[in-house]
């Protein structure tokens, strides 16, 4: 029975591989992005996705929700989007000749929420979403409505076409565990995309491989993954170094980043079917955890360095 526990954990690796394979029926390539989304989900956190238009963000997250049998909703960020459009509002309902106020839940009441172009929404609407993300509940008037579990927000930002946008301030982006970069596909992948989506054959339906309850259990398991003290120290040292490099970094990362790196490394270990965190996990997760939490100095920008380059220098 003892060894059954070991085998069960190792089976998780095949579970996650199956999830990625299932999603791959709809999404070509982007395995690293998918892995990072899974890490964010396992950490019970939220992710920021930076991508050019037309790279399949909505399709990807919709596929994830189908495979994990989770309720999915999409919110398009626009300048006229109101907080009540996200969280919901009271509406007057006619019941038995009487008019009553009934709370109509907004699209935020789902398991996976895709907030497209969050930087197009007004700061007030952004704040409503961020508050819901943080508290996992919504307060309207004097009533509080808890959000469903599991709850995951994937907010996207368009790096181009910044006109008329309200970029998220750094204090707000800090609330997202990861910043995932979605890049253009490779040539072979793009050929495959064209083949699939312009051919006569239909896109296959995706099978559900995981339920919401199983996901909640997996989130608990992710927190339990043991980590060695020296690897923990290494994670903290990486974050500390971001505050001690004034020539390249104007403002470093907060302790939230230290928590984020360790949590993400644990989730990564679980996805790989390991029962311990490796130093490699910490170094790999450092990039998506830190890239949106650093404010680079003028010298770094003048040298053409981006956040990932600076993180590479810190890790060594």
């Amino acid at each position, binding site marked *: 029975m003892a060894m059954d526990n070991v085998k069960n954990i190792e089976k998780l690796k095949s579970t996650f591989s199956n999830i990625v394979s299932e999603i791959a029926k709809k999404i070509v390539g982007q395995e690293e992005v998918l892995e990072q989304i899974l890490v964010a989900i396992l950490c019970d956190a939220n992710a920021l996705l930076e991508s050019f238009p037309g790279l399949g963000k909505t399709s990807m997250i919709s596929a994830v929700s189908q495979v994990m049998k989770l309720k999915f909703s999409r919110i398009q960020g626009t300048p006229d989007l109101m907080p009540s459009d996200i969280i919901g509002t009271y509406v007057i309902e006619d019941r038995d000749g009487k008019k009553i106020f009934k709370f109509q839940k907004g699209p935020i009441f789902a398991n996976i929420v895709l907030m497209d172009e969050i930087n197009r929404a007004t700061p007030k609407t952004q704040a409503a979403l961020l508050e819901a993300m943080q508290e996992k509940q919504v307060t309207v008037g004097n009533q509080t409505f808890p959000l469903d579990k599991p709850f995951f927000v994937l907010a996207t930002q368009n790096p181009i076409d910044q006109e008329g946008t309200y970029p998220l301030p750094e204090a707000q982006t800090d609330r997202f565990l990861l910043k995932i970069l979605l890049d253009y596909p490779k040539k072979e992948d793009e050929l495959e995309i064209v083949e699939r989506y312009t051919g006569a054959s239909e896109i296959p339906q995706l099978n559900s491989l995981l339920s919401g309850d199983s996901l909640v259990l997996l989130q608990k398991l992710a927190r*339990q993954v043991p980590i060695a003290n020296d690897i923990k120290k290494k994670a903290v040292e990486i974050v500390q170094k971001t505050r001690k490099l004034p020539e390249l970094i104007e403002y470093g990362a907060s302790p939230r980043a230290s928590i984020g790196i360790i949590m993400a490394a644990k989730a990564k270990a679980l996805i790989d079917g390991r*029962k311990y965190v490796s130093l490699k996990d910490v170094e790999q997760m450092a990039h998506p955890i830190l890239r949106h939490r650093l404010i680079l100095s003028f010298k770094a920008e003048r040298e053409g360095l981006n956040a990932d380059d600076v993180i590479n220098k810190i890790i060594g």
Partner: protein
Amino acid sequence: MVKIKEMFEEVKFEMFKVVLLGAFLDSAIFFLISYLVLSVFSIGILIPLLAAIIYLVIRSFFNMKKISLKEIEKRNPSVKEMLRTASDNQEEDSFMARALFEEVLDKMKAVSSGSFISLKQMMKKLVVIFIISSLLFTIAFFNINISKFENPFANVNLNFFQNKQTQEKAIQEAGLVTLGSGKIDINLKQNLNQIDFNSVSNPEDTGALADELEGDVNAKASKAYTKSLDDINDRKTAAEYSQKIK
């Protein structure tokens, strides 16, 4: 959980044995080299032996501090990062921690304590011991005198434990007092280290009294030291000297 603690206790004990073995070999080398060097100064075995024991204790202490689970993981890649993670989380009782302990226990069964030892280093030390021992053996076998200098501690009174009373008693022993009123014949043999006291008679037996001086004290040298004083100056000096001691 108890099993994993027991395993780490065993690992610690095995590491201690390895450290002790290494320190013992190092102190053996230290002893042999210091004995060789101090022999030049005619210093015996006691000091290098004491120094080697102190070195053994200090070396063991510092080596125990240096050795870590990381070293074991380096030599056993199958437990890389796993061993020290399990060690740091021994008190955890979660599902994941238990699964990790089970895997570590399973993999450590295949790890022998021999893997904790660096055989290459061990062989080097044994070769050095062999060389120095052979050198010392050769010196002893061929009775080669390597003492170039006097023992600097030779004139130091090492009779620390003899008390005053014992010393006074020794002085008062009549048998030990050789000067008296009797004739004493001392035969000095060729080797100055050997004095034949068989010819010495107890002054009480000869009837001599301590306060009477009868005649001269004649000391006869053995044949090898017999020298006829042909030179007149030598004879004069000898006569003056015998007057003095009278």
